[in-house]
């Protein structure tokens, strides 16, 4: 039996699961996006854009902003873990940054809803430090809350991937640059980050698509308008049983994530060539 055939046989059960339980219903929902009372057309998209174009823009901005912040935080954490020279500070950071790593999204929603609320610990601390007066205390449970929740949950994940890749880099180049007098920031930007770019992009792509499909965080932190596409889909289904517009919104966010997955594919093909 050829290796190719054996490989395909071994992958087949897993691929079949994805096909039957995801691709088939996904196809049904894509077809459903064009279905209007038995015939086909673009009516669902007209309605989706008329009602929710603001939310679509809001989703793209929120998720892109979160991805950018996650990338910066992850590079900062990974960079300090790799280049930091104070062993005590490095081990404190290593112990500290990972706590949110595996906390479920729905729990993150609940945790930050209590923390960012008007009488949450964040406002209480700001008040007791004298930064704001009690009258100025406002709830952060809007777009800021969503970004904070996403960064809180996903940055440790990307930092873990990135610091793992940085740890397996060749120390020789770093030491050589250090001996030549390069600052640590310059080494991070010019030597370390380019070498872990693939891992960083994988982590950010995974985070981007994860954030695009989380329903619990927008529902728990910011259910008012403007909100994220996922919350709109749930609303269309629960309130109106409107599968057409819900499926159209689903297809729109699929196109957004597909363009990001495309970046990953292109990068992967280039690095293997």
């Amino acid at each position, binding site marked *: 039996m050829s*290796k190719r055939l054996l490989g395909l046989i071994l992958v087949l059960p897993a691929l079949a699961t994805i096909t039957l339980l995801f691709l088939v219903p996904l196809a049904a929902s894509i077809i459903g996006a064009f279905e209007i009372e038995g015939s086909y057309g673009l009516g669902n998209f007209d309605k989706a854009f008329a009602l929710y174009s603001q939310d679509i823009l809001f989703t793209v901005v929120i998720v892109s902003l979160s991805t950018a912040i996650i990338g910066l935080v992850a590079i900062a954490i990974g960079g300090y873990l790799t280049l930091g020279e104070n062993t005590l500070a490095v081990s404190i950071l290593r112990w500290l940054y990972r706590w949110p790593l595996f*906390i*479920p999204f*729905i729990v993150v929603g*609940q945790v930050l809803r209590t923390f960012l609320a008007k009488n949450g610990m964040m406002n209480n601390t700001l008040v007791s430090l004298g930064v704001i007066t009690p009258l100025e205390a406002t709830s952060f449970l809007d777009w800021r809350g969503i970004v904070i929740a996403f960064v809180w949950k996903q940055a440790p994940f990307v930092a873990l991937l990135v610091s793992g890749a940085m740890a397996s880099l060749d120390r020789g180049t770093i030491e050589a640059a250090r001996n030549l007098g390069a600052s640590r920031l310059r080494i991070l930007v010019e030597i370390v980050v380019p070498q872990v770019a693939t891992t960083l992009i994988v982590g950010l792509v995974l985070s981007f698509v994860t954030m695009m499909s989380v329903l619990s965080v927008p529902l728990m932190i910011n259910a008012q308008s403007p909100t994220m596409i996922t919350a709109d889909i749930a609303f269309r289904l629960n309130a109106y049983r409107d599968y057409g517009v819900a499926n159209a*919104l689903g297809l729109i966010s699929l196109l957004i*994530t597909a363009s990001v997955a495309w970046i990953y*594919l292109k990068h992967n093909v280039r690095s293997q060539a």
Partner: protein
Amino acid sequence: MTSLATTTATARRLPRIDLWWVPRGLVLGLLAFAIFGPLTNLVLWTVAERWYFPHALPLEYGFSYWQRVFSPRGNAMESLANSVFVASLTVIVALALAVPAGYALARLRLPLRSLILVAFLIPQAFPNLPVYVNIARLFYGLGLNGTIPGVVLVHVTHGLVYAVWIATAAFSAIDRELEEAARSIGASALRTFRDVTLPLAAPGLMASAIFVFLESLDEFTGSFFVGAPDVNLLPLLLYTAGAGGNYQIASITALLLLVPSIGFMLVVERFLKADVLSRVGH
């Protein structure tokens, strides 16, 4: 390796105290507050009997909500048992699918390898809601709606990306020469896999099992459409309590979901070594 000049300068002014601890302490302190502040706030809510704005701390502490959650009539115990049972079954099914697939993706020449890897990402890439609605319709016809096997199948689909990607990375991190050595002294391909490859990949596979377990515990959307109201799971309990404005019950449920997650965080590096991590997604 601070340069000699700064070291002597610091030593002259402040013997034995490293001034860099000021910015370091500030940043680490802020990070600690950002991470533990929210968690402390949640724990406070679980023991708060009365708490409203503008009071910084609860007005009354007590465990009456814990008694309500864990009373024989409360549905938390049933949800907890269901969640753990569903997650365990999900791990078994997902690994049975992911171990052969990961081995093939790591070791055997596959056409369209990148495309196959991305195929497992699809369930994470598409907002699951409309898909789960269509799965619910499909399962209804098959009699799987509102059953444990139905929920397990949805969770397996959702968790396969972690299972397959981490299994692939775990297998490709193994030194090929060890397998070749076993083959050259006469071991069959199957025996080599069982006695050499599988034990070496075990920590990575363990990590992928735990990932899948936690993903299943976390899963909310699919459980809601396929499982509810017949199969009660912890995330559904948390959401309904939170939506009903009952912060105490929601926080206690959240704490129950937190414990296994934080436990895994503390031991993750024992299973997921840097050489495996750097290969995830390649």
